[in-house]
């Protein structure tokens, strides 16, 4: 790939990252950290590529270790982030006088 294209992609990604993260509420900084953590588990596809293109048993062993580590990073990261976010609930419907299941009717501040 030509270097200028790569640089363009990097610069745009940096700005998107800054822009998106600066809007994250500080209430959710812990899930943000673990969610971003899960995203860099995408190194898994790199690990799959190197594992699929080597025949040397030693190198293959190293590559397979990388696949295991990257999977743990990605899958574990998404699972634990989901577990945390599941716990963030609005007020119980009974208290907020909204019908059961109508969580969208609430006014979140």
């Amino acid at each position, binding site marked *: 790939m030509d270097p200028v294209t790569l640089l363009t992609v990097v610069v745009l990604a940096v700005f998107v990252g800054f822009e998106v993260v600066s809007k994250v509420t500080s209430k959710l900084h812990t899930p943000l950290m673990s969610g971003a953590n899960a995203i860099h588990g995408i190194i898994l596809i790199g690990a799959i590529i190197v594992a699929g293109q080597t025949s040397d048993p030693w190198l293959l062993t190293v590559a397979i270790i990388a696949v295991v580590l*990257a999977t743990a990073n990605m899958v574990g990261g998404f699972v634990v982030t989901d577990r*945390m976010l599941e716990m963030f609930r609005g007020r119980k419907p009974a208290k907020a006088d909204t019908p059961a299941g109508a969580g969208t009717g609430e006014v979140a501040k």
Partner: protein
Amino acid sequence: MSVLTPEWTALLYLVSAVCFILALKGLSSPRHARRGNLIGSAGALLAVITVFLSVKLDNIPLILAAIVVGSAIAVPIARKVQMTQMPQLVGGFNGVGGGAAALVAVLELGHNVDVWVRIAIVFTMLVGAISFSGSAITVLKLQELMTTRPVLFPGLRWVMSIAVLASLASAVLVVVTGSWIWAVLLLILGLGVGVLLVLPVGGADVPIVISLLNAFTGIAVAASGIVLENVLLLVAGTLVGASGTILTMAMAKAMGRGVTGILFGAFKGGSTAGSTTVSDRPVRSSSAEDVAVQLGYAQNVVIVPGYGLAVAQGQHTIAELATALEDRGVHVVFGIHPVAGRMPGHMNVLLAEANVPYEALKELDEVNPEFKSTDVVLVVGANDVVNPAAKSTPGSPIYGMPILEVGDANQIVFLKRSMRPGFAGIENELLYDPKTELLFGDAKESLSQVLAAVKAL
């Protein structure tokens, strides 16, 4: 298999990248956050399927088995870990990601002779290795498998400088020669630098280091995208690098410290340990029953939970107390400092786990104007984050740190273990204020007593 054309592959990777951006964007409100995370994981799954369909791969059964093993290790841990242990879990997952990036880069060394690609390779190896070993130390510190105090020894500075110079030298040698021996040496030196970087950091600062290492891993993954000519790795890694950087700076600001101060403060001899001197000025101490009466007959109560609450695991008791007060018609909100708990936003997670609705969790800017109309503020296991010295004493180490201005409230009740100053080691004038009362003891025990007394009212 390579059933997908390069164009389709690129398109599917683009979809994955958009999913990742949406995952981060979802976190702007608690209501859409979970859906965002699901979109992110769908994007990751799509990317993995795409790689199997677009690249000619050998050893597929072995790779699939490794994916199963990795998931089988991570999922039970992710499901069972306690919310108070979240910092070490994030640190651990971050470390293995960094390790994976470093290993991928080493394996690519044999395929590439281009100087620029080799520079990206050594960069990924070094940063990934630092992230791996640094994260390992943070996990050991947070899990209290080693001392949480800064670890210092004479000549640490020199050892560190030599390690950094040696890794740079071997990085250059790897780029020039492409030799495996130097590559292995570079990995070992990288691991050493990671350890030396985190050892001198004190326990309370470790979460900032986790965030920083998270950014490191992101950057390493981005560099591996250059090595493998894979735009998705490049974009996803850069996103994480940028977000990790912002979050690290935001945390440092919320703690009133610079990132370099945290990392290198110990090197300069400045202690991050905090003083333990106890003043003998008089304070008003109170009983659980008195506190219960004040809270039970108030109209507006703000609870300010801090690190001490997380340590005492008192989040469920405090949630019960809030419910008991709400049942009596008292309006209760939680005023949460950005760095309350053991990592930023941690207190929100702990309280959410205890079923406190997120509307009751108020951020610093939201809650500060409310203190003037607050009858009682209940400060549980927090000290520095409410210390007025941050606003009034220019010479103070925490000067400039944003605080919860609880001094504006009518009455203040501190639940404290002892009169020992907080982490920053500074006296809190608020403790000697006439409208302040103190209830000494373990946060969880004190809260249970107050809860029982409120119920008996």
